[in-house]
């Protein structure tokens, strides 16, 4: 699964630690999601999309 978390994070000028604290997860989680090593839960995906004010489909997409 590919995602635009890094792009959106850069748009908001946030560090991984900043984003992690705002979403209530660990910095390692943000790092793993950005590197496509971990697929977030539905809850976290929705939280992220709401935080960045985008849709979940825009933020996460299936790598075909």
């Amino acid at each position, binding site marked *: 699964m590919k995602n635009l978390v890094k792009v959106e994070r850069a748009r908001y000028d946030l560090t991984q630690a900043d984003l*992690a604290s705002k979403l*209530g997860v*660990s910095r*390692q*989680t943000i*790092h*793993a999601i950005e590197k496509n090593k*971990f697929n977030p839960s539905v809850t976290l995906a929705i939280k992220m999309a709401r935080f960045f004010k985008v849709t979940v489909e825009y933020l996460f997409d299936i790598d075909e």
Partner: protein
Amino acid sequence: MKIQILPNWCKKLGLILFLITSFITSGDAAINGYNHGYNAGRGYSQVIKNKSTLFLSYFGENFLHIFDILAIIGILIYMLSKEKVEDDYINKLRLESYQLTAIIGLIISILLYVFSKDLKLTLDYFIYLYLWFYIIIFSIKKRIDL
């Protein structure tokens, strides 16, 4: 299933308990090791017969055994304590660490059995093997981009 049942501050408690008790239990071995190395370095080839029993004579064998158990409990507390932030990814890393620890522990046990059928080891070797391997693997997984 959540196995991290203790709060984050228990990590420090477990670590302090482990450090203090392992210092006491390994004190004599450390002194003897230092003396042996020091004398070998100075070219004394004769074996020193009077080994240090400073901690053993002060605490007694039973108390040293209790301290050894407390050291194991200390690491166990550290292992069962929550991280500062608990989430799905940390849980995934933890489960992977348990899996890898079990596999490495089994491989080492099998190899020991294969190469030395009559080898007799006390249980504490295996307890420490599992506890330390888990802690090291989990720490590496958290820090290094694997």
